[in-house]
């Protein structure tokens, strides 16, 4: 398992698209370092013969009929938009 000192909060915050202040970065570095040190105890467990699983009651291949049904109107879909015009979301410029 990786060493806890490898956590670089500033770098991970960029990956997460989350700006942090210098003070937050420093605080989280310490706090999450403690959490990862605690999580290090998982290294003790022999998992060599274990398959990862999630659901308590295994279920597979969940399908339903592919039938159209009523859903949002464009107006409803836009009802919470921070900026909108002409039935469209206005987004921040992505190309120069």
């Amino acid at each position, binding site marked *: 398992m990786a060493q806890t000192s490898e956590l670089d909060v500033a770098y*991970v915050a960029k990956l997460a698209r*989350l700006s942090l202040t210098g003070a937050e970065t420093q605080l989280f570095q310490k706090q999450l370092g403690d959490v990862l040190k*605690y999580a290090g105890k998982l290294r003790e467990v022999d998992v060599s013969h*274990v398959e990862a699983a999630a*659901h*308590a009651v295994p279920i597979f291949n969940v399908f339903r009929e592919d039938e159209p049904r009523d859903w949002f109107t464009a107006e409803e879909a836009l009802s*919470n938009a921070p900026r909108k015009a002409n039935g469209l979301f206005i987004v921040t410029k992505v190309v120069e």
Partner: protein
Amino acid sequence: MSRPDLPALTIAELQPLLRRREISPREVLDLLRARIEEVDGKIDAYLSIDFEAAAKEAEKADVDLPLGGVPIAIKDIISVAGQPCTCASKILRNYRAPYDATVIRRLRAAGAIPFGKTNMDEFAMGSSTENSSVKPTRNPWDLSRVPGGSSGGSAAAVAADAAFGALGTDTGGSIRQPAAISGIVGLKPTYGRNSRFGLVAFASSLDQAGPLTKTVRDSALIMNAIAGHDPQDSTCLNEPVPDYTAALGRDLRGIRLGLPKEYMLEGIDAQVKAAVDAAVAHLQSLGAEIVDVSLPHTEYAIAVYYIIATAEASANLARFDGVRYGHRAENPKDLLDHYGRTREEGFGAEVKRRIILGTYVLSSGYYDAYYLRAQKVRELIRQDFAQAFEKVDALVSPTSPVPAFKLGERTADPLQMYLADIFTNAANLAGICGISLPCGFAQMDGHRLPIGLQLLGKALDEARIFQIAHAYEQSTDWHKARPNL
């Protein structure tokens, strides 16, 4: 009809009055409103209430339906059409849900009236409701203490008779722990028992919605309404829903209860331990057989939980990008600045911490070491429970190792706050069901603080833990105690 004491009734006590037309749903709502106006300034359980919409529903409520005319409070992470759904976060401050969650649709079909949204830790991340961006909720038993969390608003409202019942969500104990330390009943259903459609997702493989109520019977009544298959949630189980009230009243002869030896921890408060020991002896006197069992991987549960829950949260919360809904930063200089500042301004400290941790454990080079390893240890935890349930019908433990703590007491050290989930996390990892119910009081600084008993049952065995919990509850008086507000 004027009955100022009416909000103290349980749902099961209220129903016959409604059905005999001794009181109308509108009168019930008005009396509840008066109670909320009397006490909510002290406990701050609610984030928003729409009495006008609720009154309209009350006027046309069919009291002969299973929950006909009963107002139910809803944690502010569950979508109620037309109402705010803020998750107590700044990023959703102005958001209104465009549709009903499936559990809300089912509550309405059973005649219930979802009338208000309750406070919570932001995005359900916390164990004290102090991570709400709006305000902390206070414990009705001692206003200087927390009600638990993350469903702290729902728990405090029910405990203070400011709701007949409420829905919460439980990802690592967020229904059971606040129920325990606020002195009420809280059920975390089996993963997949209830639909998650319309819940704002925190950790999708762990989240379940469930009831917070004054009694076990009320919990069963709400589950009768909300449980069952939903094609809009592919993880929702297509299994029949029994009448959860049917097993209530059966005695405990032949029931085998397991005491996990790994749960005898040093850090348990002495008054909590004494109350739970007495509860176990009481269950034995009711006819249950007590069996020692082992859950060998218990000590890893919290580490596994905080890796998996934060990993899933970091992915789920990526949707809050300030494009389609929610807060958006002003005048971004480019797209990265738009995302970075929108999320910086919108999220609180605990949410940011968990996004960072979750992103890290999923990132290239660390995925196998943390996330994949945690998923494997999760499987070992699931197998621990499966083996224990070959020997016993249910497991018994404290719900929280300590009674309600003071506001501000634990906020500085996230790891200490995480350790409060020691008895509740594992049930979410294993996907099994669990209930917390009152089993006594601790005395602290001249206040009586409720203590919760947790019963864990195997997947889809809610009826069994209801039966055991009801037998205990009805032969004790803990559930009748009320805080002095």
